[in-house]
């Protein structure tokens, strides 16, 4: 650029010098000065043109033309504000929806953890010989892995990621979600305290159990009003005094970033404040900690895996009784925390992809709409284009100019879309998910989101602009300039109709997919659980936390059941050690006589829940064979179990399993007899196939904490208080938490939370696509009617009745809509093959959804045709004929 300026500055002088030299030469040859100068000038040629050509050598022609196009485009857009407003709004809606969805995908999938060198952070999962996955490692295993993997990991930390504790501050009690961590946790994650210090690194092999607490940043802000003097303050966790020593940095939410960890305690503290067994540091059977590890600088994930394979082999050889490890696998730690089963399809990824596709479809619909508007304008601007072509505008130059206009629209739409996206993602962030867990919906816009929005806008501008630009510039100068504009628009009309067909088709597909999705979510919610969550109220109580031993706890639970059954409004009462789709579940390995695992499968295993009698009545889980758990299945009587249908099918191949026995690997002395078969129900997650599961009597399988579950005849929400006071009248110090209805309890990440969120999103996208289709159909039909005002006038002058005109216009709309519906059905059938993979309880070709959506779209599209048809009907023939 600078070179250009310098070169051109001297040009005038150079030319003057040149002419002067030539003049002098001429004088030397004997010409008179005047003659000489004249000859020199003639020989030099047109000075102005030379300057211009020279300047052009240095100019960025395309840039200057672009500025020219932009200026012209702005002028054109300002000249028709109505068109501009509609087009920009349409694009803003499309881009806004995309941006909002993308900001969620960004948050759920793309955005790295807010820690230093986030790509080094990994989590470990262990694969058992039985084939199952888990991320719960025993503490001794954690220590072995930590000590033996120093070649690949610079730090290895153990975490109990998700505990709910009671925090008491100056007489005020509130729940706090905590992680119990090893001393090097914060160092491993690479975060520095916002205030105070962090839990001290572990010294030697001792387990850190200092009574200290680090608060999460937002918890500190909301519950301690950001008190800067908080350090050193004494509070209590589950009745045990602890000292606040630090505050985690802002934006750091622990190892499950989408749920806010509100407090961090030393792992050893879990022995006193939580239910970690006192011998956990030496017990290889317990699943005490999840493991997060930081890769050494430069180390790749796949380079770490072989080292872990070696450790897994070593551990299983060394401790064959407890460590049945097939492998230890290493995974990057993503925003949703360590996966419990890394082989399961990642629902969040699938959903993210699904919604990006839906949003993309909405954007395409918006493009079609704008393309349509541009085409309509193109026919109005045909004369302008013809004139410009006639005075020497090349086609490519005209196309470039039209594309500049559509890109300008897209950029305006992009600005609007980002604004809309900000508003809607703010709204999405503030959605009350009605969960007790502190979900952090943090859809802030980072550079990825802006880049995405900008990219989407550019693409939109090109897509929406290219067809109209190609069409508008393909003009036959003669016909346009000589004939009336009316006759030259048939081609445009065809293109426009094709666009509307595509649009109706696309919206039909969008609506059908959204509809299927919403229906499938309703199915999950209502019929597919295998139990009935309505009117069930849960209370999790922890006798161990209250200092009860097993015998005391049994007594307490016995009288508690007795007392709550007497409460008015309680139909049945029972307790269980796990809640379906809750945050933890149990499983065990079995020995089954006569069962030979198929090659490639591990030893038989089953998930289990220890329940009291009446559990099946409370949960409405049907007993399909045999009996349920009875009071007579006591501590000393023969071990029994009720298995689910999936277990009966897998291990007894559909034969009657009642009376068959199996052995729990943990307790080989007491064979278990199957006394009943229960219907399949959702236990661990909502969508994968039912696996083997069994129910054992709580009396024969003591474990704490337990969840008291009541089926009530009153609205369950009203009874919480009364039940808690009953519990406390029996045991004043008993910790009671997770007081929620079963429906609320399903709002977990394993359960329905994502699905509910998804249903709302799918529905909003469907509605958006629907509106866009509506605008499109209305636009094209009313435009066609307008274009035909002249023709309608002639028809009416020749005696056509208004009814005929209406029919004629409606018919035109109908053809377009019918063709669109046909296309849409084909598209939907094609899409259903993919969509069908994550639908529950409804097929991808569900006729009801198809019929409802098609009928709805047809009705509304016809209504959109009707308005222009009515207007056409009222045309005054005289006015119409004079209309030019």
């Amino acid at each position, binding site marked *: 650029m600078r*070179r250009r300026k310098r070169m051109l500055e001297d*040009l005038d002088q*150079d030319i003057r*010098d*040149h002419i002067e030299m030539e003049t002098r030469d001429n004088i030397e040859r004997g010409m008179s000065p005047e003659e000489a100068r004249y000859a020199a000038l003639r*020989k030099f*040629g047109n000075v102005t043109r030379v300057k211009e050509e020279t300047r052009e050598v240095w100019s960025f022609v395309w840039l200057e033309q672009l500025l020219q196009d932009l200026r012209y485009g702005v002028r054109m857009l300002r000249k028709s504000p109505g068109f501009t407003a509609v087009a920009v709004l349409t694009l803003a809606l499309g881009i806004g929806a995309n941006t909002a969805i993308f900001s969620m995908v960004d948050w759920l999938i793309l955005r790295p953890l807010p820690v230093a060198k986030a790509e080094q952070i990994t989590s470990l999962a262990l694969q058992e010989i039985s084939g199952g996955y888990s991320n719960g490692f025993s503490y001794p295993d954690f220590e072995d892995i930590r000590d033996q993997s120093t070649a690949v990991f610079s730090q290895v930390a153990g975490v109990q990621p998700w505990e709910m504790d009671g925090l008491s501050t100056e007489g005020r009690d509130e729940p706090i979600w905590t992680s119990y961590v090893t001393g090097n946790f914060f160092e491993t994650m690479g975060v520095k305290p916002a205030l105070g210090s962090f839990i001290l690194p572990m010294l030697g092999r001792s387990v850190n159990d200092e009574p200290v607490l680090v608060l999460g940043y937002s918890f500190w802000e909301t519950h301690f009003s950001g008190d800067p003097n908080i350090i050193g303050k004494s509070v209590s966790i589950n009745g045990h005094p602890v000292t606040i020593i630090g505050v985690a940095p802002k934006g750091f939410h622990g190892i499950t970033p989408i749920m806010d960890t509100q407090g961090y305690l030393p792992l050893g503290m879990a022995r006193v404040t939580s239910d970690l067994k006192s011998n956990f540091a030496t017990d290889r059977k317990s699943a005490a900690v999840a493991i997060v590890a930081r890769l050494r600088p430069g180390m790749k994930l796949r380079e770490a895996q072989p080292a872990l394979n070696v450790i897994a082999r070593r551990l299983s050889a060394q401790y064959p009784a407890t460590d049945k490890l097939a492998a230890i696998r290493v995974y990057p730690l993503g925003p949703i925390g360590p996966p419990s089963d890394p082989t399961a399809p990642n629902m969040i990824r699938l959903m993210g992809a699904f919604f990006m596709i839906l949003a993309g479809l909405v954007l395409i619909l918006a493009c079609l709409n704008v393309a349509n508007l541009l085409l309509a304008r193109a026919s109005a601007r045909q004369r302008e284009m013809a004139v410009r072509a006639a005075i020497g505008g090349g086609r490519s130059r005209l196309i470039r100019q039209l594309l500049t206009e559509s890109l300008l629209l897209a950029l305006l739409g992009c600005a609007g879309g980002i604004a809309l996206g900000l508003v809607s993602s703010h709204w999405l962030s503030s959605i009350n998910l009605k969960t007790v867990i502190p979900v952090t919906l943090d859809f802030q816009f980072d550079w990825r989101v802006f880049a995405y929005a900008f990219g989407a806008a550019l693409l939109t501008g090109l897509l929406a602009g290219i067809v109209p630009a190609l069409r508008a510039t393909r003009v036959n100068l003669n016909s346009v300039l000589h004939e009336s504009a009316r006759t030259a628009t048939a081609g445009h009309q065809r293109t426009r109709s094709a666009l509307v067909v595509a649009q109706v088709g696309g919206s039909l597909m969008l609506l059908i997919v959204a509809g299927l999705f919403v229906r499938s979510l309703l199915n999950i919610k209502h019929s597919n659980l295998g139990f009935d969550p309505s009117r069930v109220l849960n209370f999790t109580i922890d006798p161990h936390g209250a200092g009860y031993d097993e015998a005391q706890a049994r007594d307490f639970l016995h009288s508690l059941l007795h007392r709550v059954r007497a409460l008015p409004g309680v139909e049945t009462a029972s307790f269980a050690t796990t809640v379906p789709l809750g945050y933890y579940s149990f499983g065990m390995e079995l020995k089954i006589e006569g069962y030979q695992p198929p090659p490639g499968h591990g030893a038989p295993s089953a998930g289990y829940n220890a329940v009291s009698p009446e559990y099946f009545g409370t949960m409405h889980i049907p007993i399909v064979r045999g009996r349920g758990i009875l009071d007579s299945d006591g501590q000393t009587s023969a071990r029994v179990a009720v298995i689910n249908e999936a277990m009966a099918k897998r291990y007894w191949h559909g034969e009657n399993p009642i009376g068959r026995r199996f052995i729990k690997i943990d307790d080989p002395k007491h064979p278990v007899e199957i006394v009943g078969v229960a219907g399949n129900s959702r236990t661990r997650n909502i969508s994968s196939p039912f696996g083997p599961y069994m129910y054992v009597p709580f009396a024969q399988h003591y474990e704490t904490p337990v969840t008291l579950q009541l089926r009530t005849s009153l609205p369950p929400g009203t009874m919480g208080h009364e039940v808690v006071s009953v519990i406390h009248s029996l045991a004043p110090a008993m910790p009671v938490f997770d007081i929620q209805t079963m429906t609320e309890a399903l709002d977990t990440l394993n359960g329905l939370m994502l699905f509910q969120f998804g249903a709302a999103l799918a529905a909003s996208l469907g509605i958006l696509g629907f509106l866009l289709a509506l605008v499109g159909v209305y636009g094209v039909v009313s435009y066609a009617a307008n274009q035909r005002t002249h023709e309608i006038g002639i028809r009416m002058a020749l005696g056509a009745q208004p009814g005929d005109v209406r029919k004629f216009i409606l018919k035109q709309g109908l053809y377009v809509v019918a063709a669109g519906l046909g296309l849409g059905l084909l598209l939907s059938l094609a899409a259903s093959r993919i969509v069908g993979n994550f639908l529950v309880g409804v097929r991808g070709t569900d006729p009801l959804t198809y019929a409802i959506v098609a009928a709805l779209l047809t009705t509304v599209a016809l209504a959109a045709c009707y308005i222009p048809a009515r207007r056409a009907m009222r045309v005054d023939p005289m006015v119409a004929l004079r209309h030019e």
Partner: protein
Amino acid sequence: MSTKEQNERIALLQGTLDLLILRTLLLGPAHGHAIAKTIEFNSDDVLQVEQGSLYPALHRLIKRRWISVEEGTSENNRRAKFYRLTAKGRRQLVVETSKWDKLAGAIARILRPAEQEGKS
């Protein structure tokens, strides 16, 4: 379209002029007027270059970095811009010359038989 044909003719002329400038500068740096004179003189005034068109060509060559420009004094002690062939320009001259030879040869081969046929 007439403009298009004109453009092509100019393009051909431009290329040729570029080649002539490069060839002239092979003898040593020169200022604009001297280049014009040399071309005229060496072509026995057959090529009547419109002297002005030299300047866009010179600037084009500068932009491509085939020639460089420096301040100097002309034969009558006036400050003037001297244009000098760069190493890149020297290489380009070889390329352009061989291109020109090929082109000229090709045209000659086409024209001669055509002449003969025309006569017979």
